């Protein structure tokens, strides 16, 4: 099909590269350099979507980020993406686009019935109805509303694209490459500053690409090319197109996203789809330009109605006519440029100007070119349903509150200009409190709160000459402050048409007896009447208006509706716009792909994976791993068809009967050195540490200041002023920060240093009655007898040429040792142990067996030390010194902590000796009691006791020890179990602790 609206000799698209694409199933052609919007318009396609609420036909309105309507579902490279802005996405081969929010098709949409019933769906209607009968809201109305809402369809498929992050520092970040941005970046770069120039669009130049101006005796476009190519050559400049700075964060942290992949037909491998830049800029120069605002009139949402600058951009950049019988509707001079561009292409436009007859360079030029101009005229309403067919226009009365005449004029497009709104989003995000400028009827930046300046149209400077002057001057001054250089570039001469002031007209009055929908916010279907209702009902704050009507809350975030909405509120409330105020500008400037924000931390890289030096061995030996924070730990080593429980029983039993080996590398390890180390430990732990001899280990418990147990572990005195602390795997990082806090902040006088050595040591626990025999063979030159290396003893040894630390400590309750070697030797150590242990029936055991062993011994761990327990709750009161002070001690005096029936740890066995008690069960007296059934406590850890061959659990219950001997029910309504249990001591195995000392 031929491109009916494509011009032959205008535009910047590459006519040598024809690109095919599909829209709603039909095949079309466009050119390289087109957006999807320009390609569709070239083919005469205007109707692209349906509106959110009323399902009214909608077409293109803008040519970039200003577009409220043209959000399409795009299929490309096997991915389907909703809500893609057709005016921004570049045309590449194979795009399949389709309209959203319509059924069965955009041409015939059942939902459009809403449009005919729109009288019944004013702003806030859903707050007033759908309440009867009660259950219908959730069951009937809401599901219907949910189905009707939403725009495109999210694909449930995993995104296989790659997204990257990049970090940069610069002296100046310049956001936008129009005349303001180019001149600033150029002046600063020439003065030696490190500059990043970011342009959202694929092409640099901004308005210079479309405006009929000259700079330095070149056309605006040619000058922009020249400057950009110079900047690109400079080593101190990074020039980025397809890159939008979307957020201004604290301390001049700017965030930009770059579209690196979607415009490429064959994306090279490893090229990301999009890239997120975190840029720390010393100075930010905001040259974001301005966005044309519409004039509100009847049926102003009909396809074929455009912003006038967009229509001009389609001609100048894409060589596309948005219509062949254009009506230009304006309150200012700039739309005359659009009219003249049409005229240049042999198209005869008609101009409606709300201002009285006047003369200016552009107006005179239009007159000279025989363009019909109707002054003091406005559009009352557009006619046509799926496309503009004509317009009802009229002559405005003196105060512009009504019309004196009325006539219908044929047209196939209406190009509207209601003057310009500076793009102040980034300035506002920086903390700059905007002020209202009534010369231009818009908000502009005021006093900078961070190192930020606006230049050109983004601060309301609308002439080229002043913009260039500002740019060259500020670019030089700002860079001079940073680089101390003095290379001044003078502002080039420029030429532009001089413009008259605009008319404050922003909304056409309704003609007598008509109630046309006049839309302020297109995408969310917010009309003038909706805002009037909100105000009538008392929703008078602009935030209330916004929330009640959803004005400005659509995906275009009110870029074209914001000021007109404020004007309307001001008019009704008899205020001026600055009294109404504005809603907050929040990042991002345009919607940002979530994948881009996240970057590479996906799938297995969501979090780091920490592996011990013995990990490969575990893998080879059928270990099933469990996540312990970032660590991977063997949970059990699967043999044959074993279940988890069977394996845990086997491994634990082997420890009790023979010897087992467990990878304990993940425990936190902290080196503590200094003459005051003992005193420090004495303050950190609840028990006494001053008299621990060299070569001895001690178990310790540390509290938070609120008295709650923070962590436990053993600490060993390696030498006079050197201690080795172990922490739980989970708390390792917290404990180190905790120790550093007390050393640096609270007790800086203590001469102690702490250092994490977790990664330096690989650790293996050797546990079981035969562990000493294995140890003896591992260290043939060492006396490992009970006398020489008693419980809680420590020695250093030589493990076949490797230095090893041997701690006689036990978590399993058996005779046990923990051996540490340098991490690089971990695997060597492990293999040696397995090798030597063969004769003693050695088996590796995982965390599940480890739990079994510690539970039946009554040793507490994470489930008991859950951030809510004090030492006496878990039978650790014996470790709490009465004599000395320590962190958190004072809190232990609290009333609740000393109540006689305070929760305490106990053991439980099911009375049938068979039923395992689910962890998380609660203990009750009466399993059938009426709810709420009073709870005595909960089951914290459960295991199958390998020693006694029946289930055993630890529980923390009210009045703890006094309950021993009582029978209760452990109930888990979630699992529908109620098990009768007997309360016993929490030490189920080896009460006296003989084994560890054997």
């Amino acid at each position, binding site marked *: 099909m031929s491109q009916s609206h494509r011009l032959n000799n205008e535009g910047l698209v590459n006519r040598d590269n024809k690109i095919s694409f599909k829209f709603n199933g039909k095949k079309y052609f466009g050119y390289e350099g087109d957006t999807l919007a320009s390609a569709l318009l070239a083919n005469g396609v205007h109707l692209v979507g349906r509106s959110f609420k009323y399902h009214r036909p909608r077409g293109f309105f803008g040519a970039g980020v200003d577009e409220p309507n043209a959000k399409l579902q795009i299929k490309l490279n096997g991915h389907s993406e909703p809500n893609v802005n057709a005016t921004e996405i570049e045309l590449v081969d194979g795009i399949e686009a389709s309209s959203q929010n319509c059924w069965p098709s955009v041409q015939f949409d059942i939902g459009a019935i809403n449009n005919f019933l729109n009288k019944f769906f004013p702003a806030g*209607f859903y707050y007033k109805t759908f309440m009867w009968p*009660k259950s219908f809201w959730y069951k009937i109305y809401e599901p219907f509303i949910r189905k009707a809402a939403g725009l495109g369809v999210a694909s449930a498929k995993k995104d296989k694209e790659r997204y990257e992050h990049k970090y940069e520092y610069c002296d100046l970040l310049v956001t936008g490459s129009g005349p303001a941005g180019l001149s600033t970046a150029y002046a600063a770069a020439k003065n030696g500053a490190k500059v990043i120039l970011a342009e959202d669009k694929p092409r640099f130049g901004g308005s210079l690409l479309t405006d009929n101006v000259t700079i330095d005796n070149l056309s605006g476009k040619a000058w922009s090319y020249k400057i950009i190519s110079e900047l690109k050559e400079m080593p101190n400049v990074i020039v980025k197109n397809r890159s939008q700075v979307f957020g201004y964060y604290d301390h001049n942290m700017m965030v930009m996203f770059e579209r690196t992949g979607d415009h490429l037909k064959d994306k090279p491998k490893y090229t990301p789809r999009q890239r997120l830049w975190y840029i720390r800029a010393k100075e930010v120069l905001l040259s974001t330009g301005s966005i044309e605002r519409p004039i509100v009139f009847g049926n102003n949402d009909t396809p074929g109605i455009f912003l006038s600058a967009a229509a001009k951009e389609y001609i100048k950049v894409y060589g596309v006519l948005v219509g062949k019988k254009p009506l230009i509707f304006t309150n200012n001079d700039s739309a005359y440029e659009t009219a003249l561009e049409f005229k240049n292409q042999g198209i005869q436009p008609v101009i409606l100007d709300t201002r009285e007859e006047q003369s200016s360079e552009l107006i005179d030029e239009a007159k000279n070119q025989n363009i019909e101009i109707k002054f003091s005229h406005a559009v009352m309403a557009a006619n046509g349903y799926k496309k503009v067919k004509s317009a009802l226009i009229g002559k405005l009365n003196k105060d512009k509150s009504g019309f004196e005449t009325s006539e219908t004029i044929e047209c196939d497009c209406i190009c509207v200009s209601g003057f310009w709104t500076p793009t102040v989003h980034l300035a506002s995000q920086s903390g700059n409190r905007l002020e209202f400028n009534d010369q231009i009827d818009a908000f502009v930046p005021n006093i900078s709160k961070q190192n930020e300046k606006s230049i050109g149209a983004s601060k309301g400077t609308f002439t080229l000459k002043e913009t260039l002057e500002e740019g060259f001057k500020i670019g030089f001054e700002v860079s001079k402050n940073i680089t101390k250089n003095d290379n001044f570039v003078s502002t080039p001469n420029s030429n532009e048409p001089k413009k008259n002031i605009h008319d404050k007209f922003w909304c056409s009055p309704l003609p007598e007896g008509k109630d046309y929908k006049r839309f302020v916010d297109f995408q969310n279907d917010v009309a003038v009447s909706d805002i009037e209702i909100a105000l009538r009902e008392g929703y008078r*704050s602009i935030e209330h208006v916004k929330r009640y009507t959803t004005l400005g809350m659509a995906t275009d975030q009110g870029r074209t509706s914001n000021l007109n909405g404020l004007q309307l509120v001001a008019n009704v409330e008899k205020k001026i716009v600055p009294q109404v105020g504005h809603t907050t500008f*929040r990042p991002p400037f345009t919607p940002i792909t979530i994948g881009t924000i*996240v970057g590479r931390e996906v799938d297995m890289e969501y979090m780091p994976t920490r592996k011990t030096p013995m990990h490969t061995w575990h893998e080879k030996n059928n270990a099933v791993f469990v996540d312990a924070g970032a660590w991977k730990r063997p949970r059990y080593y699967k043999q044959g068809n074993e279940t988890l429980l069977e394996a845990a029983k086997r491994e634990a039993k082997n420890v009790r009967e023979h010897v087992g080996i467990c990878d304990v590398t993940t425990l936190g390890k902290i080196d503590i050195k200094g003459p005051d180390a003992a005193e420090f430990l004495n303050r950190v732990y609840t028990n006494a540490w001053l008299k621990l001899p060299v070569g001895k280990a001690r178990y310790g418990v540390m509290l938070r200041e609120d008295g709650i147990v923070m962590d436990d572990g053993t600490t060993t005195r390696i030498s006079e002023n050197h201690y080795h602390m172990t922490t739980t795997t989970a708390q390792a990082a917290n404990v180190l920060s905790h120790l550093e806090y007390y050393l640096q902040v609270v007790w800086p006088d203590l001469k102690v240093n702490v250092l994490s050595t977790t990664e330096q040591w690989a650790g293996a626990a050797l546990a079981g009655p035969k562990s000493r025999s294995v140890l003896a063979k591992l260290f043939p030159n060492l006396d490992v007898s009970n006398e020489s290396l008693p419980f809680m003893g420590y020695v250093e040894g030589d493990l076949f040429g490797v230095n090893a630390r041997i701690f006689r400590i036990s978590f399993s309750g058996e005779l046990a040792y923990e051996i540490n070697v340098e991490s690089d030797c971990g695997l060597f150590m492990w293999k040696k142990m397995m090798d030597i242990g063969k004769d003693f029936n050695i088996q590796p055991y995982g965390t599940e067996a480890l739990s079994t062993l510690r539970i039946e011994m009554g040793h507490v761990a994470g489930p008991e030390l859950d951030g809510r327990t004090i030492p006496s709750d878990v039978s650790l009161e014996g470790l709490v010194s009465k004599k000395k002070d320590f962190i958190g001690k004072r809190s232990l005096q609290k009333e*609740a902590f000393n109540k006689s029936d305070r929760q305490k740890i106990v053991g439980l066995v099911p009375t049938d000796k068979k039923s395992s008690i689910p962890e998380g069960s609660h203990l009750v007296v009466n399993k059938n009691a009426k709810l709420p059934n009073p709870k005595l406590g909960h089951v914290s850890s459960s295991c199958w006791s390998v020693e006694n061959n029946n289930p055993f659990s630890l529980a923390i219950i009210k009045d703890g020890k006094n309950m021993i001997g009582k029978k209760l029910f452990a109930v888990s309504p*979630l699992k529908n179990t109620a098990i009768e249990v007997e309360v016993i001591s929490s030490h189920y195995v080896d009460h006296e602790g003989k084994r560890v000392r054997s």
Partner: protein
Amino acid sequence: MQKYSIFSLIKNAFSNHEKWDLAWKDPTPKKEYDVVIIGGGGHGLATAYYLAKEHKITNVAIIEKGWIGGGNIGRNTTIIRSNFMYDDNAKFNEFGMNLWRNMSQELNFNVMFSPRGIINLAHSDAQMNAYARRGNSMRLNGIDAVLLNREEVKKIIPMADFSEDVRYPIFGGLAQPSAGTARHDAVAWGYARQADSMGVDIIQNCEVTGFDVSAGKIQGIRTSRGDIKTKKIGLCVAGSTNVLAEKLNMTLPIETHLLQACVSEPVKPILDGVVTFGAGHFYISQSDKGEMVMGGDLDGYNSYAQKGNLPTIQHVLTGGIALFPFLSRLKMLRTWGGIMDMSMDGSPIIDKTHIEGLYLNCGWCYGGFKSVPSSGWTFAHTIAQDKVHELNEGFSLNRFSRGYLLDEKGLGTKTWIS
């Protein structure tokens, strides 16, 4: 007061919607009130409503610095639940669930409460056990809870990542089927409209500049719109509690932090209920409009900025994609922040104070929205009767010194790491 219904809607359509009444008036402050509620947010508006309705105290003013509903009631992610472990939290919020279920009818304002359920996902057996402890506690308190295994979770959210190459696989989850969401603004407006109709003065754009306290008793307040006499003040200004406490020379067990949330562009329904990720800070639901509403973590340092950091959003969304890879292709539309009263044990404070006539409602952390009705109801009782109700007994100010903490997460006083 006009009654809202389909009939009134049709009737008004024929008069071009020109005959709707004001939802609430805009009165000038009187010289004196029986009770002054400071803060026109959810909690303040609900308190005023229940004072009028349950205790027939209608000579009440709500003093709001900005516009009603502009604080956290208008900035939250609208989750309503009672899935708590501690009895005090559970009872209180389950009482609130019953108020939620009837709220639209009671207020004659559709607050769109919909019990689409919440699932807290677990990614290890240890986490499953911790959830079982909480879920069983809920069940024994008469609150609905279901423990789901991996397959059951998959049936409900098949688009979550159940593939092999996932860092923290889903083990299962704890669900509260009766939990849900509501339209947050509507809650504020609904309470405001009813309170107004019963005689409560809603005074907006009125800043409290000081308190008149003598002999240990409240005598009145000073505002930007003049002095107001009153014997009773209810402070409902979560997020600004510390600022007003300073004016009263009070220090509280509260730090002020920023919580951010964000929404995606609207898409067709893909997620029905609320889901929380168990291996990171992330929760999500889909609004009736189609936006994915997401939140998760504090910015991590004291803040009154109502504007947050991108790294926090990045951190939250990273968890989002880990759970729901399809989110990667959606676009983040809008981010915003709300200022939180982070209490030292993560639970709120609703209590009397050492100043006679000064009542405190604060410390909601990031769970204030769900408690709006129960908080308003119990606070109204506390103010009207000058004594705490059984339901808010546990939320006393002195629980910290006495040791009766309600630390659902067991994280202690480092409020910024919760």
